[in-house]
Protein backbone atom coordinates (compact mmCIF):
# COMPACT_ATOMS: atom_id res chain seq x y z
CA UNK A 1 0.00 0.00 0.00
CA UNK A 2 1.28 3.44 -0.93
CA UNK A 3 -0.13 6.19 1.23
CA UNK A 4 0.00 9.90 0.40
CA UNK A 5 -0.43 12.14 3.44
CA UNK A 6 -1.08 15.81 2.74
CA UNK A 7 1.47 15.80 -0.06
CA UNK A 8 2.21 19.09 -1.79
CA UNK A 9 4.71 19.94 -4.48
CA UNK A 10 5.23 23.56 -5.37
CA UNK A 11 7.95 24.83 -7.65
CA UNK A 12 7.37 28.42 -6.60
CA UNK A 13 4.41 30.31 -5.22
CA UNK A 14 2.77 30.50 -8.63
CA UNK A 15 3.29 26.93 -9.85
CA UNK A 16 1.89 24.37 -7.52
CA UNK A 17 1.96 20.97 -9.19
CA UNK A 18 0.29 18.97 -6.45
CA UNK A 19 -1.89 20.46 -3.73
CA UNK A 20 -2.31 18.72 -0.42
CA UNK A 21 -3.33 15.28 -1.64
CA UNK A 22 -4.14 12.44 0.70
CA UNK A 23 -5.06 9.03 -0.65
CA UNK A 24 -4.13 5.38 -0.54
CA UNK A 25 -3.02 3.27 -3.45
CA UNK A 26 -4.06 -0.31 -2.74
CA UNK A 27 -1.59 -3.17 -2.99
CA UNK A 28 -1.69 -5.71 -5.81
CA UNK A 29 -4.04 -3.55 -7.85
CA UNK A 30 -3.62 -1.22 -10.78
CA UNK A 31 -4.35 2.39 -9.92
CA UNK A 32 -4.58 4.91 -12.74
CA UNK A 33 -3.84 8.59 -12.25
CA UNK A 34 -5.66 10.46 -14.97
CA UNK A 35 -6.31 14.06 -15.89
CA UNK A 36 -5.47 16.74 -18.45
CA UNK A 37 -1.84 17.80 -18.89
CA UNK A 38 -0.58 19.87 -16.00
CA UNK A 39 -2.96 18.22 -13.53
CA UNK A 40 -0.11 16.88 -11.42
CA UNK A 41 -0.47 13.18 -12.27
CA UNK A 42 3.14 12.67 -13.39
CA UNK A 43 4.45 14.69 -10.44
CA UNK A 44 2.41 12.51 -8.11
CA UNK A 45 3.87 9.37 -9.70
CA UNK A 46 7.46 10.60 -9.60
CA UNK A 47 7.28 11.54 -5.95
CA UNK A 48 6.87 7.85 -5.13
CA UNK A 49 10.37 6.92 -6.31
CA UNK A 50 11.74 10.32 -5.35
CA UNK A 51 12.54 11.50 -8.87
CA UNK A 52 10.64 14.52 -7.56
CA UNK A 53 10.79 15.56 -3.92
CA UNK A 54 7.57 16.76 -2.27
CA UNK A 55 7.62 20.19 -0.64
CA UNK A 56 5.32 19.06 2.15
CA UNK A 57 3.67 15.91 3.40
CA UNK A 58 4.74 12.29 3.51
CA UNK A 59 4.57 9.31 1.21
CA UNK A 60 4.54 5.95 2.94
CA UNK A 61 5.14 2.57 1.34
CA UNK A 62 3.76 -0.13 3.63
CA UNK A 63 4.15 2.27 6.52
CA UNK A 64 7.67 3.54 5.92
CA UNK A 65 8.39 7.05 4.73
CA UNK A 66 10.11 7.01 1.33
CA UNK A 67 12.32 9.97 2.24
CA UNK A 68 13.83 7.94 5.06
CA UNK A 69 14.76 4.98 2.85
CA UNK A 70 18.06 4.64 1.02
CA UNK A 71 17.21 6.16 -2.35
CA UNK A 72 18.94 3.44 -4.38
CA UNK A 73 17.35 0.61 -2.38
CA UNK A 74 13.98 2.30 -2.77
CA UNK A 75 14.34 2.65 -6.54
CA UNK A 76 15.68 -0.86 -7.09
CA UNK A 77 12.52 -2.13 -5.42
CA UNK A 78 10.25 -0.16 -7.72
CA UNK A 79 9.88 -0.96 -11.41
CA UNK A 80 9.85 2.15 -13.55
CA UNK A 81 8.49 2.50 -17.09
CA UNK A 82 8.67 5.97 -18.58
CA UNK A 83 6.97 7.72 -21.43
CA UNK A 84 9.62 7.41 -24.12
CA UNK A 85 10.79 4.03 -22.80
CA UNK A 86 14.30 5.32 -22.12
CA UNK A 87 16.04 2.11 -23.14
CA UNK A 88 19.82 2.46 -22.99
CA UNK A 89 20.78 2.82 -26.66
CA UNK A 90 24.26 1.31 -26.26
CA UNK A 91 23.07 -1.86 -24.55
CA UNK A 92 21.42 -4.94 -26.01
CA UNK A 93 17.83 -5.81 -25.12
CA UNK A 94 19.22 -8.40 -22.73
CA UNK A 95 21.53 -5.97 -20.94
CA UNK A 96 18.75 -3.42 -20.71
CA UNK A 97 16.47 -5.92 -19.02
CA UNK A 98 19.31 -7.09 -16.77
CA UNK A 99 19.99 -3.58 -15.44
CA UNK A 100 18.46 -3.91 -12.00
CA UNK A 101 19.43 -7.58 -11.45
CA UNK A 102 23.02 -6.53 -12.20
CA UNK A 103 22.77 -3.65 -9.74
CA UNK A 104 21.53 -6.17 -7.20
CA UNK A 105 24.51 -8.39 -8.09
CA UNK A 106 22.55 -11.42 -9.18
CA UNK A 107 24.52 -14.36 -10.54
CA UNK A 108 25.08 -14.44 -14.29
CA UNK A 109 23.16 -17.70 -14.79
CA UNK A 110 20.19 -16.44 -12.78
CA UNK A 111 20.10 -13.25 -14.86
CA UNK A 112 20.18 -15.23 -18.13
CA UNK A 113 17.24 -17.37 -17.06
CA UNK A 114 15.30 -14.32 -15.87
CA UNK A 115 15.85 -12.38 -19.11
CA UNK A 116 14.52 -15.30 -21.20
CA UNK A 117 11.55 -15.65 -18.90
CA UNK A 118 10.69 -11.94 -19.13
CA UNK A 119 11.07 -11.76 -22.90
CA UNK A 120 8.67 -14.66 -23.17
CA UNK A 121 6.28 -12.97 -20.76
CA UNK A 122 6.11 -9.81 -22.87
CA UNK A 123 5.74 -11.82 -26.06
CA UNK A 124 9.19 -11.46 -27.61
CA UNK A 125 11.06 -14.56 -28.73
CA UNK A 126 14.22 -14.58 -26.54
CA UNK A 127 16.49 -16.10 -29.21
CA UNK A 128 15.83 -13.42 -31.78
CA UNK A 129 15.47 -10.42 -29.48
CA UNK A 130 17.99 -10.81 -26.63
CA UNK A 131 20.94 -9.48 -28.58
CA UNK A 132 19.19 -6.74 -30.55
CA UNK A 133 19.94 -3.10 -29.90
CA UNK A 134 17.10 -0.72 -29.01
CA UNK A 135 17.38 1.04 -32.39
CA UNK A 136 16.50 -2.23 -34.12
CA UNK A 137 13.14 -2.47 -32.32
CA UNK A 138 9.76 -1.10 -33.35
CA UNK A 139 7.97 1.25 -30.98
CA UNK A 140 5.76 -1.54 -29.65
CA UNK A 141 8.70 -3.90 -29.16
CA UNK A 142 10.66 -1.20 -27.33
CA UNK A 143 7.72 -0.69 -24.98
CA UNK A 144 7.58 -4.42 -24.28
CA UNK A 145 11.26 -4.40 -23.44
CA UNK A 146 10.62 -1.39 -21.21
CA UNK A 147 7.98 -3.35 -19.32
CA UNK A 148 10.25 -6.41 -19.09
CA UNK A 149 13.04 -4.21 -17.72
CA UNK A 150 10.74 -2.82 -15.04
CA UNK A 151 9.67 -6.33 -14.03
CA UNK A 152 13.22 -7.73 -14.02
CA UNK A 153 13.94 -7.93 -10.32
CA UNK A 154 10.32 -8.78 -9.54
CA UNK A 155 9.60 -5.53 -7.65
CA UNK A 156 6.31 -5.39 -5.74
CA UNK A 157 5.59 -1.89 -7.06
CA UNK A 158 5.69 -0.65 -10.65
CA UNK A 159 5.35 2.96 -11.73
CA UNK A 160 4.30 3.59 -15.32
CA UNK A 161 4.24 7.04 -16.86
CA UNK A 162 2.14 6.94 -20.05
CA UNK A 163 3.92 3.75 -21.05
CA UNK A 164 1.88 3.17 -24.20
CA UNK A 165 1.60 6.82 -25.21
CA UNK A 166 4.12 6.77 -28.02
CA UNK A 167 2.81 3.83 -30.07
CA UNK A 168 0.11 3.70 -32.73
CA UNK A 169 -3.49 3.09 -31.54
CA UNK A 170 -3.64 -0.51 -32.78
CA UNK A 171 -0.40 -1.51 -31.11
CA UNK A 172 -1.51 0.36 -28.00
CA UNK A 173 -4.65 -1.74 -27.61
CA UNK A 174 -2.62 -4.93 -28.12
CA UNK A 175 -0.08 -3.83 -25.52
CA UNK A 176 -2.86 -2.92 -23.09
CA UNK A 177 -4.50 -6.31 -23.47
CA UNK A 178 -1.22 -8.14 -23.00
CA UNK A 179 -0.33 -5.96 -20.08
CA UNK A 180 -3.72 -6.64 -18.47
CA UNK A 181 -3.01 -10.35 -18.86
CA UNK A 182 0.44 -9.96 -17.26
CA UNK A 183 -1.03 -8.04 -14.35
CA UNK A 184 -3.71 -10.69 -13.85
CA UNK A 185 -0.91 -13.19 -13.46
CA UNK A 186 1.51 -11.12 -11.35
CA UNK A 187 -0.74 -8.85 -9.25
CA UNK A 188 1.76 -6.04 -8.82
CA UNK A 189 0.97 -2.76 -7.12
CA UNK A 190 0.91 -0.59 -10.22
CA UNK A 191 0.58 3.17 -10.44
CA UNK A 192 -0.21 4.11 -14.00
CA UNK A 193 -0.33 7.62 -15.42
CA UNK A 194 -2.32 8.32 -18.57
CA UNK A 195 -4.51 10.96 -20.15
CA UNK A 196 -6.37 8.38 -22.22
CA UNK A 197 -9.70 7.59 -20.57
CA UNK A 198 -10.26 4.44 -22.61
CA UNK A 199 -6.89 3.12 -21.50
CA UNK A 200 -7.78 3.90 -17.89
CA UNK A 201 -11.12 2.12 -18.10
CA UNK A 202 -9.56 -0.86 -19.85
CA UNK A 203 -6.84 -1.38 -17.25
CA UNK A 204 -7.70 0.22 -13.93
CA UNK A 205 -8.87 -1.34 -10.72
CA UNK A 206 -9.09 2.17 -9.35
CA UNK A 207 -8.93 5.57 -10.98
CA UNK A 208 -7.87 8.87 -9.45
CA UNK A 209 -9.16 11.74 -11.57
CA UNK A 210 -6.89 14.75 -11.10
CA UNK A 211 -7.16 18.39 -11.99
CA UNK A 212 -5.11 21.40 -10.92
CA UNK A 213 -2.98 19.37 -8.51
CA UNK A 214 -5.93 17.85 -6.68
CA UNK A 215 -7.66 14.51 -6.77
CA UNK A 216 -11.29 15.13 -7.65
CA UNK A 217 -12.48 11.56 -7.39
CA UNK A 218 -10.79 8.31 -6.44
CA UNK A 219 -12.85 5.20 -6.98
CA UNK A 220 -13.43 2.16 -9.14
CA UNK A 221 -13.98 2.90 -12.84
CA UNK A 222 -17.55 1.59 -12.54
CA UNK A 223 -18.34 4.05 -9.73
CA UNK A 224 -16.70 7.01 -11.44
CA UNK A 225 -18.58 6.28 -14.64
CA UNK A 226 -21.88 5.74 -12.86
CA UNK A 227 -21.57 8.57 -10.36
CA UNK A 228 -19.07 11.28 -11.31
CA UNK A 229 -18.79 13.65 -8.34
CA UNK A 230 -18.60 16.83 -10.35
CA UNK A 231 -19.04 18.26 -13.79
CA UNK A 232 -15.35 18.06 -14.69
CA UNK A 233 -15.20 14.33 -13.98
CA UNK A 234 -18.48 13.84 -15.80
CA UNK A 235 -17.19 15.67 -18.88
CA UNK A 236 -13.79 14.01 -18.71
CA UNK A 237 -15.39 10.57 -18.85
CA UNK A 238 -16.98 11.57 -22.16
CA UNK A 239 -20.53 11.59 -23.48
CA UNK A 240 -20.47 7.81 -23.95
CA UNK A 241 -19.75 7.07 -20.33
CA UNK A 242 -22.76 4.72 -20.10
CA UNK A 243 -21.20 2.61 -22.85
CA UNK A 244 -17.77 2.85 -21.23
CA UNK A 245 -19.30 1.56 -18.06
CA UNK A 246 -20.79 -1.41 -19.85
CA UNK A 247 -17.29 -2.17 -21.15
CA UNK A 248 -16.25 -2.78 -17.53
CA UNK A 249 -19.08 -5.18 -16.75
CA UNK A 250 -18.74 -8.85 -17.67
CA UNK A 251 -21.82 -10.44 -19.21
CA UNK A 252 -21.84 -12.92 -16.33
CA UNK A 253 -23.22 -10.14 -14.10
CA UNK A 254 -26.23 -9.54 -16.32
CA UNK A 255 -26.84 -13.13 -17.30
CA UNK A 256 -30.38 -14.53 -17.04
CA UNK A 257 -31.53 -18.11 -16.76
CA UNK A 258 -33.63 -19.01 -19.72
CA UNK A 259 -35.59 -21.92 -21.02
CA UNK A 260 -33.97 -24.45 -23.32
CA UNK A 261 -35.27 -27.23 -25.44
CA UNK A 262 -33.73 -30.56 -26.45
CA UNK A 263 -33.74 -30.58 -30.21
CA UNK A 264 -34.18 -34.35 -30.29
CA UNK A 265 -37.35 -34.19 -28.22
CA UNK A 266 -40.73 -32.82 -29.21
CA UNK A 267 -42.80 -29.68 -28.63
CA UNK A 268 -44.33 -31.15 -25.50
CA UNK A 269 -41.16 -30.24 -23.53
CA UNK A 270 -42.24 -26.61 -23.64
CA UNK A 271 -45.65 -26.41 -22.08
CA UNK A 272 -46.88 -22.85 -22.50
CA UNK A 273 -43.76 -20.81 -23.27
CA UNK A 274 -44.01 -17.10 -22.57
CA UNK A 275 -41.05 -16.17 -24.74
CA UNK A 276 -41.12 -15.96 -28.50
CA UNK A 277 -38.22 -18.34 -28.80
CA UNK A 278 -36.17 -20.82 -26.79
CA UNK A 279 -32.52 -21.83 -27.05
CA UNK A 280 -32.06 -25.27 -28.56
CA UNK A 281 -29.50 -27.77 -27.28
CA UNK A 282 -28.31 -31.04 -28.73
CA UNK A 283 -27.91 -34.31 -26.76
CA UNK A 284 -24.53 -33.26 -25.41
CA UNK A 285 -26.15 -30.07 -24.03
CA UNK A 286 -24.37 -27.93 -26.59
CA UNK A 287 -26.11 -24.89 -27.97
CA UNK A 288 -26.97 -25.26 -31.62
CA UNK A 289 -29.45 -22.44 -32.18
CA UNK A 290 -32.90 -21.17 -31.30
CA UNK A 291 -36.43 -22.28 -31.97
CA UNK A 292 -39.37 -20.05 -32.87
CA UNK A 293 -42.18 -20.99 -30.47
CA UNK A 294 -45.10 -19.14 -32.08
CA UNK A 295 -48.25 -21.19 -32.72
CA UNK A 296 -47.74 -21.39 -36.47
CA UNK A 297 -44.33 -22.92 -36.17
CA UNK A 298 -45.49 -25.42 -33.58
CA UNK A 299 -47.28 -27.22 -36.37
CA UNK A 300 -43.90 -28.14 -37.92
CA UNK A 301 -41.54 -30.74 -36.55
CA UNK A 302 -39.20 -29.23 -33.94
CA UNK A 303 -36.10 -29.58 -36.13
CA UNK A 304 -37.60 -27.45 -38.86
CA UNK A 305 -38.32 -24.56 -36.50
CA UNK A 306 -34.62 -24.40 -35.60
CA UNK A 307 -32.44 -21.47 -36.64
CA UNK A 308 -28.76 -22.26 -36.24
CA UNK A 309 -26.55 -19.66 -34.57
CA UNK A 310 -23.53 -18.07 -36.22
CA UNK A 311 -20.26 -18.22 -34.32
CA UNK A 312 -20.19 -14.43 -33.80
CA UNK A 313 -23.65 -14.39 -32.27
CA UNK A 314 -22.54 -16.49 -29.34
CA UNK A 315 -20.97 -14.71 -26.36
CA UNK A 316 -18.23 -16.17 -24.20
CA UNK A 317 -18.44 -15.65 -20.42
CA UNK A 318 -15.47 -13.22 -20.45
CA UNK A 319 -17.02 -10.82 -22.94
CA UNK A 320 -18.33 -7.51 -21.66
CA UNK A 321 -21.85 -6.15 -21.69
CA UNK A 322 -20.68 -3.52 -24.16
CA UNK A 323 -19.62 -6.25 -26.58
CA UNK A 324 -22.94 -8.02 -26.03
CA UNK A 325 -24.83 -4.83 -26.79
CA UNK A 326 -22.78 -4.18 -29.88
CA UNK A 327 -23.41 -7.68 -31.23
CA UNK A 328 -27.12 -7.39 -30.54
CA UNK A 329 -27.19 -4.17 -32.55
CA UNK A 330 -25.24 -5.83 -35.35
CA UNK A 331 -27.41 -8.91 -35.57
CA UNK A 332 -30.65 -7.13 -34.78
CA UNK A 333 -31.57 -9.53 -31.99
CA UNK A 334 -33.01 -8.82 -28.55
CA UNK A 335 -30.99 -11.45 -26.74
CA UNK A 336 -27.83 -13.48 -27.15
CA UNK A 337 -26.73 -16.75 -25.56
CA UNK A 338 -23.67 -17.03 -23.32
CA UNK A 339 -21.74 -20.23 -23.86
CA UNK A 340 -18.61 -21.56 -22.21
CA UNK A 341 -15.63 -22.52 -24.33
CA UNK A 342 -16.54 -26.15 -23.76
CA UNK A 343 -19.90 -25.47 -25.41
CA UNK A 344 -21.96 -25.57 -22.19
CA UNK A 345 -24.90 -23.15 -22.30
CA UNK A 346 -24.89 -20.70 -19.36
CA UNK A 347 -27.86 -18.47 -20.04
CA UNK A 348 -28.73 -15.41 -22.04
CA UNK A 349 -28.23 -11.68 -21.93
CA UNK A 350 -31.06 -9.51 -23.22
CA UNK A 351 -31.46 -5.94 -24.30
CA UNK A 352 -34.34 -5.40 -21.87
CA UNK A 353 -32.20 -6.62 -18.96
CA UNK A 354 -29.34 -4.23 -19.91
CA UNK A 355 -31.80 -1.34 -20.10
CA UNK A 356 -33.40 -2.27 -16.84
CA UNK A 357 -30.05 -2.33 -15.02
CA UNK A 358 -28.61 0.86 -16.53
CA UNK A 359 -31.89 2.61 -15.78
CA UNK A 360 -31.89 1.56 -12.15
CA UNK A 361 -28.32 2.91 -11.84
CA UNK A 362 -29.44 6.25 -13.16
CA UNK A 363 -32.27 6.44 -10.68
CA UNK A 364 -29.80 5.93 -7.86
CA UNK A 365 -27.84 9.00 -8.97
Amino acid at each position, binding site marked *: MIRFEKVTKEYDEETVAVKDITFEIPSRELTVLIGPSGCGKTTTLKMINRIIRPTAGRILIDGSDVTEMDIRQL*RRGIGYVIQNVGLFPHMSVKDNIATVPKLLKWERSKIDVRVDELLQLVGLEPKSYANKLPKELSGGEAQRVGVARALAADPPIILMDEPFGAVDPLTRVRLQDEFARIQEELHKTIVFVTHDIDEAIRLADKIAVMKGGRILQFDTPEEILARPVEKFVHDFMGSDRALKRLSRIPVLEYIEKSETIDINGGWEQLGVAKEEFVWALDDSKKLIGWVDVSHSSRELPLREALTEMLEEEILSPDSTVKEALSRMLESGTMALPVVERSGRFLGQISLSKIQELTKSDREEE
Partner: protein
Amino acid sequence: MALWESFLRWLFPEEREVLHPRGTLLELVGEHLWMVIVSSGLATVVGISIGVLVTRPLGRQYLPLVSNLSSLGQTFPPVAVLALAVPLLGFGFKPTVAALLLYGLLPILRNTITGIENIPSEVREAAYGMGMSSWQVLFKIELPLALKVIMSGIRISVVINIGTATVGATIGAGGLGSPITAGLVSENPAFILEGAIPAALLAFSADSLLGNIEKSFSSE
Protein backbone atom coordinates in the same frame (compact mmCIF):
# COMPACT_ATOMS: atom_id res chain seq x y z
CA MET B 1 66.81 7.87 -45.15
CA ALA B 2 69.13 8.16 -48.12
CA LEU B 3 66.08 8.14 -50.30
CA TRP B 4 64.59 11.03 -48.34
CA GLU B 5 67.83 13.01 -48.77
CA SER B 6 68.08 12.33 -52.50
CA PHE B 7 64.44 13.29 -52.93
CA LEU B 8 65.05 16.70 -51.32
CA ARG B 9 68.31 17.10 -53.24
CA TRP B 10 66.49 16.37 -56.50
CA LEU B 11 63.93 19.08 -55.59
CA PHE B 12 66.46 21.68 -54.56
CA PRO B 13 69.70 20.94 -56.44
CA GLU B 14 71.15 24.41 -55.72
CA GLU B 15 71.04 24.09 -51.90
CA ARG B 16 74.30 23.12 -50.20
CA GLU B 17 72.49 21.33 -47.31
CA VAL B 18 69.07 19.68 -47.65
CA LEU B 19 68.89 18.00 -44.25
CA HIS B 20 68.86 19.94 -40.99
CA PRO B 21 71.70 18.80 -38.75
CA ARG B 22 69.56 18.60 -35.60
CA GLY B 23 68.66 14.96 -36.15
CA THR B 24 67.58 12.21 -38.49
CA LEU B 25 64.03 12.13 -39.80
CA LEU B 26 63.19 9.38 -37.35
CA GLU B 27 64.52 11.38 -34.39
CA LEU B 28 62.60 14.48 -35.43
CA VAL B 29 59.36 12.54 -35.91
CA GLY B 30 59.95 10.85 -32.54
CA GLU B 31 60.41 14.17 -30.73
CA HIS B 32 57.41 15.58 -32.48
CA LEU B 33 55.14 12.68 -31.71
CA TRP B 34 56.22 12.58 -28.09
CA MET B 35 55.18 16.24 -27.63
CA VAL B 36 51.83 15.51 -29.28
CA ILE B 37 51.21 12.33 -27.30
CA VAL B 38 52.01 13.95 -23.97
CA SER B 39 50.02 17.10 -24.66
CA SER B 40 46.98 15.37 -26.21
CA GLY B 41 47.06 12.75 -23.49
CA LEU B 42 46.96 15.46 -20.84
CA ALA B 43 44.33 17.39 -22.80
CA THR B 44 42.19 14.23 -22.94
CA VAL B 45 42.41 13.63 -19.21
CA VAL B 46 41.86 17.29 -18.32
CA GLY B 47 39.20 17.88 -21.00
CA ILE B 48 37.08 14.86 -20.09
CA SER B 49 37.42 15.58 -16.35
CA ILE B 50 36.34 19.19 -16.69
CA GLY B 51 33.61 18.22 -19.14
CA VAL B 52 32.27 15.65 -16.68
CA LEU B 53 32.52 18.06 -13.73
CA VAL B 54 30.54 20.85 -15.35
CA THR B 55 27.76 18.47 -16.38
CA ARG B 56 27.25 17.29 -12.76
CA PRO B 57 24.52 19.04 -10.75
CA LEU B 58 27.15 20.65 -8.52
CA GLY B 59 29.38 21.88 -11.34
CA ARG B 60 26.66 22.94 -13.72
CA GLN B 61 26.84 26.57 -12.65
CA TYR B 62 30.36 26.73 -14.14
CA LEU B 63 29.28 25.32 -17.51
CA PRO B 64 28.93 28.70 -19.31
CA LEU B 65 32.15 30.02 -17.77
CA VAL B 66 34.14 26.96 -18.81
CA SER B 67 32.72 26.94 -22.33
CA ASN B 68 33.62 30.61 -22.77
CA LEU B 69 37.10 30.28 -21.32
CA SER B 70 37.97 27.33 -23.50
CA SER B 71 36.72 29.09 -26.64
CA LEU B 72 38.77 32.12 -25.62
CA GLY B 73 41.86 29.94 -25.15
CA GLN B 74 41.55 28.84 -28.73
CA THR B 75 41.76 32.43 -30.02
CA PHE B 76 45.26 33.12 -28.59
CA PRO B 77 47.93 32.69 -31.25
CA PRO B 78 50.16 29.71 -30.32
CA VAL B 79 53.27 31.84 -30.40
CA ALA B 80 51.78 34.19 -27.80
CA VAL B 81 51.00 31.24 -25.54
CA LEU B 82 54.59 30.05 -25.91
CA ALA B 83 55.91 33.51 -25.08
CA LEU B 84 53.79 33.56 -21.92
CA ALA B 85 54.79 30.02 -20.97
CA VAL B 86 58.55 30.54 -21.27
CA PRO B 87 58.96 32.76 -18.15
CA LEU B 88 57.04 30.19 -16.13
CA LEU B 89 58.33 26.92 -17.51
CA GLY B 90 61.59 27.83 -19.24
CA PHE B 91 62.52 26.83 -22.79
CA GLY B 92 61.98 23.59 -24.64
CA PHE B 93 59.62 20.70 -24.12
CA LYS B 94 57.56 21.81 -21.09
CA PRO B 95 56.23 25.17 -22.30
CA THR B 96 55.45 23.63 -25.70
CA VAL B 97 53.46 20.85 -24.12
CA ALA B 98 51.65 23.43 -21.98
CA ALA B 99 50.71 25.47 -25.04
CA LEU B 100 49.57 22.38 -26.93
CA LEU B 101 47.57 21.23 -23.94
CA LEU B 102 45.70 24.52 -23.94
CA TYR B 103 45.11 24.20 -27.67
CA GLY B 104 44.03 20.62 -27.71
CA LEU B 105 41.78 21.03 -24.72
CA LEU B 106 38.90 22.85 -26.38
CA PRO B 107 37.73 20.20 -28.87
CA ILE B 108 37.85 17.47 -26.23
CA LEU B 109 36.14 19.56 -23.58
CA ARG B 110 33.50 20.82 -25.98
CA ASN B 111 32.76 17.35 -27.34
CA THR B 112 32.60 15.82 -23.87
CA ILE B 113 30.03 18.42 -22.84
CA THR B 114 28.04 17.99 -26.08
CA GLY B 115 28.18 14.21 -25.87
CA ILE B 116 26.87 14.15 -22.32
CA GLU B 117 24.31 16.91 -22.79
CA ASN B 118 22.87 15.24 -25.90
CA ILE B 119 21.92 12.05 -24.10
CA PRO B 120 18.09 11.97 -24.09
CA SER B 121 16.78 12.98 -20.69
CA GLU B 122 14.60 9.87 -20.45
CA VAL B 123 17.67 7.65 -20.68
CA ARG B 124 19.20 9.39 -17.68
CA GLU B 125 15.87 9.39 -15.84
CA ALA B 126 15.45 5.66 -16.47
CA ALA B 127 18.95 5.02 -15.16
CA TYR B 128 18.42 6.98 -11.95
CA GLY B 129 14.87 5.65 -11.65
CA MET B 130 16.17 2.10 -11.59
CA GLY B 131 18.44 2.89 -8.69
CA MET B 132 21.84 3.57 -10.25
CA SER B 133 24.20 5.80 -8.28
CA SER B 134 25.60 8.96 -9.89
CA TRP B 135 28.88 7.13 -10.54
CA GLN B 136 27.09 4.21 -12.15
CA VAL B 137 25.10 6.58 -14.36
CA LEU B 138 28.34 8.31 -15.38
CA PHE B 139 30.38 5.20 -16.14
CA LYS B 140 27.68 2.84 -17.39
CA ILE B 141 25.44 5.25 -19.25
CA GLU B 142 26.80 8.73 -19.88
CA LEU B 143 30.43 8.11 -20.82
CA PRO B 144 29.73 5.06 -23.02
CA LEU B 145 27.02 7.00 -24.85
CA ALA B 146 29.22 10.09 -25.24
CA LEU B 147 32.29 8.03 -26.19
CA LYS B 148 31.95 8.43 -29.93
CA VAL B 149 31.61 12.21 -29.74
CA ILE B 150 34.50 12.41 -27.25
CA MET B 151 36.66 10.29 -29.57
CA SER B 152 36.05 12.66 -32.41
CA GLY B 153 37.12 15.53 -30.12
CA ILE B 154 40.34 13.67 -29.37
CA ARG B 155 40.96 13.14 -33.07
CA ILE B 156 40.53 16.85 -33.84
CA SER B 157 42.75 17.72 -30.90
CA VAL B 158 45.57 15.40 -32.02
CA VAL B 159 45.45 16.67 -35.60
CA ILE B 160 45.55 20.31 -34.43
CA ASN B 161 48.45 19.54 -32.13
CA ILE B 162 50.52 17.77 -34.79
CA GLY B 163 50.40 20.98 -36.79
CA THR B 164 50.79 23.38 -33.90
CA ALA B 165 53.69 21.47 -32.35
CA THR B 166 55.96 22.75 -35.13
CA VAL B 167 55.85 26.15 -33.44
CA GLY B 168 57.57 24.64 -30.41
CA ALA B 169 60.84 24.68 -32.30
CA THR B 170 61.03 28.45 -31.87
CA ILE B 171 61.68 27.89 -28.17
CA GLY B 172 63.90 24.89 -28.69
CA ALA B 173 61.46 22.05 -28.26
CA GLY B 174 62.75 20.25 -31.34
CA GLY B 175 60.57 18.05 -33.47
CA LEU B 176 59.62 18.63 -37.08
CA GLY B 177 59.41 22.36 -36.39
CA SER B 178 63.23 22.57 -36.13
CA PRO B 179 64.04 22.19 -39.84
CA ILE B 180 61.05 24.41 -40.70
CA THR B 181 62.24 27.23 -38.43
CA ALA B 182 65.82 26.82 -39.56
CA GLY B 183 64.69 26.80 -43.17
CA LEU B 184 62.76 30.01 -42.67
CA VAL B 185 65.70 31.71 -41.01
CA SER B 186 68.28 30.56 -43.52
CA GLU B 187 65.93 30.79 -46.50
CA ASN B 188 66.42 27.10 -47.26
CA PRO B 189 63.19 25.65 -48.74
CA ALA B 190 64.59 22.12 -48.49
CA PHE B 191 64.66 22.41 -44.70
CA ILE B 192 61.09 23.71 -44.68
CA LEU B 193 59.85 20.74 -46.69
CA GLU B 194 61.94 18.38 -44.60
CA GLY B 195 59.77 19.35 -41.66
CA ALA B 196 56.49 20.16 -43.39
CA ILE B 197 56.01 16.99 -45.46
CA PRO B 198 56.39 14.51 -42.55
CA ALA B 199 54.25 16.76 -40.33
CA ALA B 200 51.46 16.78 -42.91
CA LEU B 201 51.72 13.01 -43.38
CA LEU B 202 51.62 12.50 -39.63
CA ALA B 203 48.48 14.60 -39.38
CA PHE B 204 46.79 12.67 -42.19
CA SER B 205 47.61 9.27 -40.76
CA ALA B 206 46.60 10.26 -37.21
CA ASP B 207 43.31 11.54 -38.58
CA SER B 208 42.49 8.34 -40.44
CA LEU B 209 43.71 6.04 -37.66
CA LEU B 210 41.65 7.77 -34.98
CA GLY B 211 38.75 8.13 -37.42
CA ASN B 212 38.71 4.36 -37.82
CA ILE B 213 38.73 3.82 -34.08
CA GLU B 214 35.81 6.21 -33.85
CA LYS B 215 33.88 4.29 -36.51
CA SER B 216 34.42 1.03 -34.70
CA PHE B 217 32.49 2.52 -31.76
CA SER B 218 29.56 3.66 -33.87
CA SER B 219 29.05 0.28 -35.52
CA GLU B 220 28.40 -1.31 -32.16
